[in-house]
């Protein structure tokens, strides 16, 4: 196995036992990027100092949890001195003067940023096709989309260009591309991981999260990046558990998992239902108690999410007024303009009497939160497919302004409720991966990770790799 193919735990063990150096590990990833990224376009900017940082890590005598490990960072996290664009031409020349909390914590833990990954511009989408720098391709089939908005990060992990990656989710942007690229994507609860230095999309749901090769890797990364941040007033003071150490201690005996029927509706792609059924049987074998339930139809969350998100987007993008970042406002692409218009209209309507769109959406949001609260009185988690189907072909998002909202409809309710959830590979259809989502109440990270870990250890889907011989 090549060094770049190692998962995080294997890479840490190898470095610890001096089987290889960080420099060799970084070099292997850079080689992979060099030969494969011309097909995939997962990266926008590379960190020119990565090898130097690896040399320094190799000399560093201080123990650090992620020392010398290469990772890929979604381009909406600010990196001091490294161009950060959020895949938007408006920020084409923006070199941030400060570091995001997530990347600062990874740096302090010894991880080395290889570069910044492609995404939907401003994270507006679920395809990575709306990037102002061109789409990323799905490593399993170049004619297909990687999902999004963290498509570059998911593709980079799937194609072994890095040991792990960081994405961010507003509604599905970590889990959906992870499902489409056949990797593990974890969305911690809203308020668990700091948003400081993350270019805001929808502030009330934005949640950074890791995209990894295994659940156990995701547990380790999460405990490094999670926790209260004095720079983000929405982060929780709740202590962060040692998620990774706690993983093997529990079995799934006694774990109650709900199967909401609304998440297995008729509009799923063929085979998705069978794959989820198989996963249900597997989880039952592991000791979990599973039971069908009824939840609010996820279709209600589409409208709520769209209104809240567009409203917040219109506000968050107001600072890009064409004065300070070298580009005027004509550099905004179609999708961003669309969202600003809808959001501006929704917020104005609060006072003009055309309809209280924003307030109504917040009221329905409360109902959805209450619906989940009721469910979690009797269950620890619920499950379903992450996405209604496998990856779609390039171009699918074009001329479809609701593409993301429709593709993410099975994770939106959880996102607007601040829940934590994971997507793990659970099979394939037509050579494309399918993801299983396990979702729990806010701050139940450990339970979600435990269940996903037990499932993953009893299956082999996550070990399958795409064939990267594209020549």
């Amino acid at each position, binding site marked *: 196995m090549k060094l770049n193919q190692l998962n995080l735990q294997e890479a840490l063990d190898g470095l610890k036992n001096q089987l290889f150096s960080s420099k060799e590990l970084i070099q292997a990833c850079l080689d992979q990027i060099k030969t494969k990224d011309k097909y995939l376009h997962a990266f926008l900017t590379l960190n020119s100092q990565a090898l130097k940082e690896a040399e320094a890590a190799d000399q560093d005598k201080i123990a650090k949890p992620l020392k010398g490990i290469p990772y890929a960072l979604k381009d909406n996290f*600010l990196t001091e001195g490294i161009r950060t664009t959020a895949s938007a031409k408006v920020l084409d020349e923006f070199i941030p003067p*400060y570091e995001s909390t997530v990347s600062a914590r990874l740096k302090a833990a010894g991880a080395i940023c290889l570069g910044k990954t492609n995404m939907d511009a401003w994270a507006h989408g679920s395809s990575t096709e709306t990037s102002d720098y061109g789409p990323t391709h799905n490593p399993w089939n170049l004619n297909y989309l990687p999902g999004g908005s963290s498509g570059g990060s998911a593709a980079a992990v799937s194609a072994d260009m890095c040991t792990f990656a960081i994405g961010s989710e507003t509604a599905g942007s970590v889990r959906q591309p992870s499902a489409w690229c056949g990797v593990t994507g974890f969305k911690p609860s809203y308020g668990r991981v700091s948003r400081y*230095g993350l270019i805001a999309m929808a*502030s009330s749901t934005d949640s950074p999260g890791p995209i990894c090769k295994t659940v156990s890797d995701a547990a380790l990364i999460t405990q490094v990046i999670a926790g209260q941040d004095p720079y*983000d007033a929405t982060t929780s003071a709740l202590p962060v558990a040692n998620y990774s150490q706690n993983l093997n201690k529990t079995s799934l005996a006694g774990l109650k998992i709900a199967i909401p029927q609304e998440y297995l509706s008729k509009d799923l792609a063929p085979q998705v239902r069978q794959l989820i059924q198989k996963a249900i049987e597997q989880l039952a074998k592991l000791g979990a108690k599973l039971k069908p339930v009824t939840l609010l139809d996820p279709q209600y969350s589409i409208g709520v999410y769209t209104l809240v998100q567009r409203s917040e987007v219109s506000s968050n993008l107001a*600072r890009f007024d064409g004065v*300070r970042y070298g580009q005027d406002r004509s550099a905004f692409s179609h999708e961003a303009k669309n969202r600003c218009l809808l959001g501006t209209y929704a*917020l104005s309507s*609060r006072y003009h009497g055309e309809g209280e769109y924003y307030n109504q959406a917040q009221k329905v949001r409360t109902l959805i939160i209450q619906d989940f609260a009721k469910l979690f009185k009797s269950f620890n988690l619920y499950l379903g497919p992450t996405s209604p189907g496998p990856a779609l072909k390039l171009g699918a998002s074009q001329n479809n302004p609701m593409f993301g909202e429709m593709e993410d409809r099975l994770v939106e309710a959880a996102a607007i409720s601040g829940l934590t959830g994971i997507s793990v590979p659970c099979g394939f259809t037509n050579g494309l991966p399918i993801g299983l989502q396990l979702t729990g109440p806010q701050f139940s990270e450990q339970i979600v990770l435990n269940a996903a870990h037990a499932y993953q250890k009893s299956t082999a889907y996550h070990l399958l790799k795409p064939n990267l011989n594209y020549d």
Partner: protein
Amino acid sequence: MTKLFSTIGLEIHVELKTKSKMFCGCPADHFQVKPNTHTCPVCLGLPGALPVPNKTAIDWTIMIGLALDCQINHESTFDRKHYFYPDLPKGFQISQYDDPFCQQGYLTLDSGKKILINRVHLEEDTAKLIHKKINNKDVTLVDFNRSGVALVEIVTEPVVTSGNEAKEFLKKLRDILRRLQVSDCDMEKGSMRLEANISLTADAKHLAEYKVEVKNLNSFRFVDQAINYEIERQTSLLEQGITPTQETRGYDDLKKQTFSQRIKEAAGDYRYFPEPDIPPIVLSKEYVENLRKQLPKLPETETAELVQRFHLNNSTAQLLVKDAVKLSYFKKYLTEIEPVKLANLIINKKIDLTKPLLLKTAAQAVDLKIIEKVIRENADAVAKYKAGKTSVVGFLVGQVMKQTHGKVDPKQAQQELLKHLRGVSS
């Protein structure tokens, strides 16, 4: 001619003198500071930066609310107020809209009339625009040192009826704010900014269908003058059957006239919505009561006490209470001299407040026995004086001061000494 009633509401912005800004750790001090040196990603509105509210600023806002007999909301939120202007780096100002910290208070005028307070809320100040000529070109520069400084807005109900009433209210408000030590209220430095909303109506029970906002009034006198000017201007328009335009006007203090600046925006254009980056702020009863306990004695109470306990007249008491230095001087020496006399000395600037009190009044008559005693006990010095060395008088004065524990006027002491010395010599 039908009688027209004037309806005036006041909006007062006060910069709090907290050490750091409202939503970041930058120093809040911005007066005569090198431009753009007190800034960070938060107050520059850089991508990814998030606001974290300043606890002291919240406490002080609530104390202002309590001093104005407001109700304190159990749960308050910050809201985003959107508009495009170069002094607003995020494209919105973090302010409070639906649930401000304090609502429904009042301040009582001398006449007994209560000026109702609609709300006291907390927000952030904007950056400062500096219009300059550089290389013969007109340019506008932005100084972000002021961006994000804690700003309290106090809004009255439209219950003020004259410029004079407005002036009295504002003076009383400033005295309270200074007493709370939350703001310098210096209008020249812009730490207190005044606006008046003025309209006239023939029907005293209903508000007019328009209102005129006069902004940037930087003295109480100008508020008075601007209001009176507006009442005259609007009266004359209404008498011609013209409804005055809803607009924002400025005040030219040289011409003593208001002038049109821009047509006023409606609330909807600001697209207010709850600031998602700051969770709602929940204040327990105990928390608010604890702040109430920390309130200093307010000017009204203190004035009443001075009048009652020390028999000062009302205006003297008010003048003392308004000035922390004068008041503390008064309190320090009021056991040593008759309080009314002391108060008058302070108010009439007859004594230097930076020095200990010399009781001139008690020293009117320099005790002749002491003069004689000093002359008797300092025969050497007297001899030197007689020999023509007149400068020894200073030494003798010092001796008199010592004997009297500094309670006599040195000049008088000198005169008496000279009289005696001449008498001795003759």
